[in-house]
């Protein structure tokens, strides 16, 4: 006599295994990362995303990454010396940022998080200006319109919607899909693995898909959202989410500057051509802390960090340059000197950043000042003046 089948699936008439009915809830890891330069510095080729890089271009990438790392190291030290209140470190993410940053054209526009120091470098923003926000003297001291680079955005993911709206504006301005390389433009929105859980990011995907907006969603998956690992944010590889929103996603080795450049350039061109949004997941690792206030030893294994050190983005390009005789000793010496000079400039410049004045803040709230705020400012100015020997 056989036992009756009491499984819920059987009662519903679907057979015993409901997993079979619905299919898998998780996909496999997807295709391999797009990679053009292995951690050992071997040049490999990819069927879709491959480019010929000039020697000058390769040395340029290397210089960008070395100097970006120097900015990060100096800023971290400045925080330790009490010159900055906080610093968001990018150590380990240089290739992802330089690859993405160098793929941009002048007319493109970037919406960064607060960690895009390498992209800012590519846009020609004086790195000293990046320090102001972290020193507490301003909220970002560059003109977004001048550099095509928005102000750092602290609220996680909020800028992805701004990017999508800006891209919608480009569509209306007729600078998408004209075929003129000097005219066609695109937007790139930076965010991280943690932000991928935010409603705003998901809404940005929906709006961008709905309007076919020329925007590249560039996610640096550095594996950690402060202390929370990527597994807390997603059960599937992040780039595979894109398909659910109706546009392509691709995972690139974010520690490989060549692959990141190639993939981002293709995604940006796709956007400029009017073919809509793309999701690029740059698979990388946050070698440092979330910020200088964080202590990663509380939540992750040093063995993991050690294994990622072997995939260092700068070391692999250095190995490639040296092995192929693309840069000589003089080049490396000169670059080391340049980095030292940059460091000295940052150390001196940081301390010389002008202190903000509270009375000025009243003037920045509105484009059209209100009488009541002007009166509040005047009242406070009079209060300050009431002190003997007041100088403001």
């Amino acid at each position, binding site marked *: 006599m056989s036992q009756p089948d009491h499984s819920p699936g059987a009662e519903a008439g679907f057979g015993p295994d409901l997993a079979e009915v619905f299919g898998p809830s998780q996909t496999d890891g997807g295709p391999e990362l797009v990679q053009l330069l292995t951690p050992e510095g071997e040049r490999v080729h990819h069927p879709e995303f491959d480019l010929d890089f000039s020697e000058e271009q390769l040395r340029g990438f290397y210089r960008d990454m070395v100097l970006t790392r120097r900015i990060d190291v100096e800023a971290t030290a400045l925080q330790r010396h009490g010159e900055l209140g906080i610093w968001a470190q990018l150590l380990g993410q240089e290739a992802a940022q330089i690859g993405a940053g160098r793929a941009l054209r002048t007319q493109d526009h970037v919406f960064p998080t607060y960690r895009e120091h390498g992209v800012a470098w590519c846009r020609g923003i004086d790195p000293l200006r990046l320090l102001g926000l972290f020193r507490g003297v301003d909220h970002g001291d560059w003109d977004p319109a001048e550099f095509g680079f928005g102000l750092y955005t602290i609220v996680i993911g909020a800028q992805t919607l701004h990017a999508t*709206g800006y891209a919608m*504006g*480009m*569509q209306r301005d007729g600078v998408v899909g004209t075929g003129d390389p000097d005219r066609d433009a695109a937007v790139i929105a930076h965010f991280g693995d943690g932000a991928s859980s935010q409603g705003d990011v998901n809404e940005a995907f929906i*709006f961008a898909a709905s309007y076919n907006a020329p925007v590249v969603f560039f996610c640096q998956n550095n594996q950690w959202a402060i202390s929370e690992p990527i597994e807390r944010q997603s059960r599937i590889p992040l780039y595979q989410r894109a398909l659910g929103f109706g546009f392509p996603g691709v995972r690139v080795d974010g520690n490989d500057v060549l692959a990141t450049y190639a993939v981002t350039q293709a995604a940006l061109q796709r956007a400029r051509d009017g073919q809509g949004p793309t999701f690029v997941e740059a698979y990388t690792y946050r070698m440092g802390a979330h910020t200088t206030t964080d202590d990663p030893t509380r939540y992750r294994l040093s063995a993991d960090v050690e294994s990622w050190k072997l995939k260092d983005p700068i070391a692999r390009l250095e190995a490639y340059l040296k092995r192929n005789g693309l840069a000589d000793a003089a080049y490396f010496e000169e670059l080391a000197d340049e980095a030292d000079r940059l460091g000295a400039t940052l150390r001196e410049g940081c301390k010389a950043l002008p202190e903000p004045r509270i009375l000025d803040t009243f003037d*920045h*709230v*509105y484009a059209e000042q*209100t009488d009541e705020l002007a009166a509040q400012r005047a009242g406070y100015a009079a209060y300050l003046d009431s002190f003997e020997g007041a100088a403001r």
Partner: protein
Amino acid sequence: MSERITLAKGLNMGLRRAMEDDSKVLVMGEDVGKLGGVFRITDGLQKDFGEDRVIDSPLAESGIVGTAVGLALRGYRPVVEIQFDGFVYPAYDQIVCQVAKMHFRSRGRSRMPMVIRIPFGGGIGAVEHHSESPEAQFAHTPGLKVVACSNPVDGYWMLQQAIACDDPVVFLEPKRQYHADKADLDTSATPEPLFSSRVVRPGTDLTLLAYGPTVKTALRVAEAAATEGRSVEVIDLRTLSPLDMGPVLASVRRTGRAVVCHEAHVNLGMGAELSARITEECFYSLEAPVLRVGGFDTPYPASRIEEDFLPDLDRVLDAVDRSMEF
């Protein structure tokens, strides 16, 4: 040449004229296209200005406001429609953290000329979340400007002025008035400045402050009080941030008494701020404390009893009596 119009028509005409005057003006929101909005404020606009300028959005308020931020940064002047007051909260972060702070954060380099239209207030027998009065939450936020129209003529002019403003304006529309009273609109007239309050009925005994949907109530109160020999001056505040205290203070210095009336909860509402400012500026002129009449400090009730929640003729008259007898 004047025309008799409703508030809904005035807003529609105002939007149309703003779009004709400036090609950078865009309308965005849920159902604003073919349907013309659930209240028909955008009726016919998509047909005449196209889908690129009158944009039906996905159903996500943070997305609507967040993408409008990007459009504004690109040089557009988006006018976004939040379908109902209670649905603005998903966009609250974008409004408070991004829209309000962009000019300040960039020290004036990035402007945010955006209008966020919100049908507000109760009295239409709606289900939950459709009758709220969130004005104090926005008036409390530096960087935003907040105005409320009360009649068709103001609707027409104030909306155009808000669109022309280089700062973000939360534009509150009393939804129960949309299709109610008509008024004569002369489109060739010169409007008063946007951020100005207005005496809508002169009086000598007491100053009654109202805005949006309660202006009508306040005028009825003044009429009823007149039959008892009391002369109530009614001020339509029109602007809630910044406040235009000039006409208010001048009035209270004459009358010595003030009552504030709004549909929003009394606790920490606009009435609290108005009361504080009047007390600070008119202390020696006051014959009575400033009194507030508003929605109770309960969530908005089920619609069958909403008129008990809302400040009506009798509750405001009661406050007038208490002030006069003080």
